[in-house]
């Protein structure tokens, strides 16, 4: 099986310059994953806060209801289906003539999809913070949003960083289905190479190795970030 593995690798990627396809694919994979993770965290933080605000008026109850439905629907359907629905349905006639249409939709879908999971992670993080922190902030005269943003969320995020990191890693790998809506990501680039060279093993193994490297690199960055945020607990 491994006979001539490196020769094949060399022939395909270097001699015939297929590495340029991989680089294009890698670029799109990274764009989707990195922007979507930011969308996921920002959107997820809002949804999480909507879920934890005290339900003492109709407006708060409404936000809470919307957030619950949002999380249920997004988590209850496969990201692949969401992609197809967005590309061929909801946004079928949007972004007309934009060469990056598929990429934009993929970013949005992965961002929104991730936000539902992130919301639940952040909600758990918020609930893990002692309620004395909220009381101390409020007792100083800070309003609810300020206390949430300045005091509760920074602590919550620090506590849930491992879970958020996991979400990012899942996201990197999940983007491999973006090819189904014509996005030229790593996986789709490799599929193109497979059909160009009538060989599957070498390209797919290479693909697997690249995802693994990406995940290792992401893990390394997350560990460094975690260490920096742990500065305050000695």
């Amino acid at each position, binding site marked *: 099986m491994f006979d001539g593995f490196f020769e094949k690798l060399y022939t395909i990627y270097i001699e015939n310059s297929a590495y340029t396809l991989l680089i294009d694919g890698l670029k799109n994979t990274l764009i989707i994953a990195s922007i979507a993770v930011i969308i996921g965290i920002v959107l997820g933080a809002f949804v999480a806060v909507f879920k934890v605000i005290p339900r003492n008026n109709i407006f708060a109850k409404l936000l809470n209801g919307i957030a619950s439905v949002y999380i249920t629907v997004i988590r209850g359907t496969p990201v692949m289906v969401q992609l197809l629905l967005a590309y061929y349905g909801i946004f079928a006639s949007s972004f007309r003539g934009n060469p990056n249409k598929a990429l934009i939709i993929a970013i949005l879908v992965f961002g929104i999809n991730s936000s539902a999971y992130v919301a639940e992670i952040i909600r758990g993080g918020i609930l893990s913070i*002692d309620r*004395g*922190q909220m*009381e*101390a*902030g*409020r*007792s*100083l*005269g*800070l*309003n609810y949003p*300020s206390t949430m943003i*300045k*005091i509760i969320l*920074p*602590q919550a995020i*620090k506590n849930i960083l491992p879970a958020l990191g996991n979400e990012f890693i899942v996201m990197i790998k999940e983007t491999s289905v973006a090819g189904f809506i014509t996005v030229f990501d790593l996986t789709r680039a490799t599929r193109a190479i497979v059909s160009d060279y009538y060989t599957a093993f070498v390209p797919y193994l290479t693909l697997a190795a690249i995802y693994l490297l990406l995940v290792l690199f992401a893990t390394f960055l997350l560990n460094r970030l975690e260490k920096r945020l742990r*500065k*305050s*607990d*000695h």
Partner: protein
Amino acid sequence: MITENNLIEVRDLKKSFGKTEVLKGIDAEIKKGEVVVIIGPSGSGKSTFLRTLNLLEDPTGGKIYFEGVDITDPKTDINLHRQKMGMVFQQFNLFPHMTVMKNMTIAPVKLKKATKKEAEARAMTLLKRVGLDDKAEAYPSQLSGGQKQRAAIVRALCMQPDVMLFDEPTSALDPEMVGEVLDVIKALANDGMTMAVVTHEMGFAREVADRVLFIDQGIIMEQGTPEEVFGNPKSPRLKDFLSKVL
């Protein structure tokens, strides 16, 4: 009726948690410059009473006037009034992700009570007074319990409040650290700060209180000067309570 020199006036205050009625109609007032110490058995409602004064607990009934304004009125902006009511908690509740200095300055700066520079200067003066100026750049986790509580007191003072509310400020401390925190509170009292203190430290109550409130079963059973309350208790409940704690 609101009297001029009453900083806080409480009328028929009631609070229930579900079916449990914790406060059953409390009438009280705190005058400017007065030190009111609140004592009572655990579960009597004394902490709840203190926490309703800045609406950390929403009263179920009755009125609270702070500087003449009915703060139980939903139209009142409670955040504005809380800026003038400092609160110190049993569990300190310092913000662990910020340095001591940032803990001191976050509220005054965020609420535009002072520029960052002014707030830091004031915080430093106050920290010095409680012997914590060398801890300004430390994180709360690096402080002892007594230091944490002293820092928490300074944090509340940085807002330049008109009244300080202390909710069992020494109950979570190791015995050897109680003194240093009580000393800070005493010094504040001597400076003329208006305050309400819930405490189990009877010696402290006797020493600093202008007036002692004995709360039991959700009402003020008895009140008076420390001499009256400790020296000549009238109700059997207070006598019973004092016999257990003194």
